[in-house]
């Protein structure tokens, strides 16, 4: 797999949203809706370039989503942007009825997901969004870095139907480059290995790659899969389960109803495999992003420890 192996440059995935939208501006059907967070969600550049296709909803997220649904029903491709906790949590009922049941082509693009929101604390650190959106049958994409976030945003416009795009606030390493394959719905093996497979999404993909390095020093060969989309790329997951015989899932999200739950349901049905879960088990709190990653067991050394546990259960 071709990756940007240096991992030296850092950028937030939310910047990928902003830059992706800017590129999409050429498409006259793309409109952007915002709920008083244009700086944080990085939609300001689009607004400045395409003021007629930018709609401010004010601090009113139910209406943000409802307006997006109305625009979608008449053939526009609306990106409704806000923080994950508001877009998927506060406006859940509107997403459920006016977007999901309505089959409205709304791209719900939310930033500030996960504990890496940091100092703002538990009220702003959304950890249940993937569970909520996949529960509605909305395809969910959790990009692993800035570049993938930008590519996911661009790809979202031509995806047939609603999507949930999940972005983070914190600068994280850029691990892909222009040649890294990306297609919504297809998981990619970022590092090959045969003793254990780490299936991760979002910023946990970087942590998983670092964990694989730690495991290598202990003689354990770890496969790392960037599983950015739910519903799962079942083929890639099942192949990994059969080849490696042990699985660890890693996500900056609750262990209830996210990537880990989805993987383990598939495995229980088709290929029972010892599995361990890296993810949050409580609400967050205030702290720096890296302190919170540590506290919630989302860092590479923790993943490596859990991987060894899964391997020992083979």
């Amino acid at each position, binding site marked *: 797999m071709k990756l940007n192996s240096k991992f030296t440059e850092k950028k937030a995935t939310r910047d990928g949203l902003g830059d992706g939208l800017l590129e999409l501006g050429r498409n006259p059907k793309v409109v952007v809706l915002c709920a008083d967070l244009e700086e944080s969600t990085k939609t300001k550049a689009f607004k400045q370039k395409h003021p007629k296709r930018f709609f401010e909803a*004010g601090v009113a997220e*139910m209406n943000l989503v*409802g307006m997006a649904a109305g625009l*979608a029903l*008449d053939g*526009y491709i609306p990106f409704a942007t806000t923080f994950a906790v508001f877009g998927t949590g506060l406006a859940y009922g509107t997403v459920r*009825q006016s977007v999901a049941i309505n*089959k409205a082509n709304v791209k719900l693009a939310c930033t500030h997901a996960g504990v890496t929101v940091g100092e703002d604390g538990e009220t702003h650190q959304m950890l249940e969004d993937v569970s909520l959106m996949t529960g509605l049958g909305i395809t969910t994409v959790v990009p692993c870095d800035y570049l993938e976030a930008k590519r996911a945003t661009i790809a979202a416009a031509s995806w047939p139907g609603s999507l949930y795009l999940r972005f983070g606030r914190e600068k994280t390493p850029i691990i892909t480059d222009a040649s890294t394959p990306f297609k919504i719905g297809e998981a990619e093996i970022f590092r090959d290995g045969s003793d254990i497979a780490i299936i991760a999404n979002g910023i946990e993909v970087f942590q998983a790659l670092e964990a694989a390095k730690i495991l290598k020093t202990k003689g354990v060969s770890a496969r790392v899969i960037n599983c950015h989309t739910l519903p799962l790329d079942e083929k890639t997951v099942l192949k990994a389960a059969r080849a490696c015989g042990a699985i660890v899932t890693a996500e900056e999200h609750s262990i209830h109803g996210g990537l880990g739950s989805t993987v383990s349901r598939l495995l229980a049905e088709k290929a029972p495999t010892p599995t361990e879960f890296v993810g949050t088990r409580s609400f967050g709190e205030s702290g720096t992003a890296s302190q919170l990653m540590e506290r919630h067991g989302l860092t590479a050394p923790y993943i490596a420890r859990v991987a060894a546990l899964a391997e020992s259960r083979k």
Partner: protein
Amino acid sequence: MQEKRRRRLERIAWELRGDIVAMVANAKSGHCGGPLGLAEVFSVLYFHSMRHDAKKPLWRERDRLYLSNGHVCAVLYAALARSGYFPPEELLSFRKLGSRLQGHPHRNERIGIETTAGMLGQGLSVSVGAALAARLDKSKRRVYCVASDGECQEGSTWEAAMAASNYNLSNLTLLIDYNNVQISGHVSEVMRLEPFAAKWKAFGWNVLEARGNDVESVAQAIEKAKLEKSRPTAIICRTTLGKGVSFMEDNPEWHGKPPDAEQARRALEEISERLEKL
């Protein structure tokens, strides 16, 4: 309005009432109080005011109607059937397994159902989005939203009200079913909305009042809204819940209860007596 046209619209309204009672009685479940009170509003919308064509349901320039208070869908389905979107016999599939006429509307533009509704308080937001889309398209099509008084207790309704006014959506007309009834009783006693017109005015809307069970009054208000150049219009339609069935009128019990066989017979009798006189 010409006398002939007025009588035609009245006649259609009473026919819709017959359909509503038949549908809800046949389904042995569902709402007839709200729909009965809205018969004139739907008669005027579908047979007088809106530009639409049942033979071309996907025509891009059609006026749109987004029903927000989904539970009153019996009146929408009856109006769509009588407009020719689907055969009237299909009305009896209402609320049955496999039906296109779900207990609350499920979007199906091919038969004229523009949006899914049931959870109250969302239709106005969707309508605002649709009105923005019409403007981006530089289209003259108009967007109508029918909503209830009860759902004006939802905060989301006022989020949408604020946005419609902020964007000067003069192509949007909201018709509010002001029957003063909700599930727990009379709106004025459950959770007061008054001063209601003043609230909409304060949100920047052009506000009109109409006698909601008078086709001429409703039609006049809708035509007046079309002349407004800079603001969205809210038409507060004063209706009577259960209109036309004496034992249902203004009785909150009939918000969501189906008539039994005997009650349905009496209701249909009252309705056909009126139809004969028209």
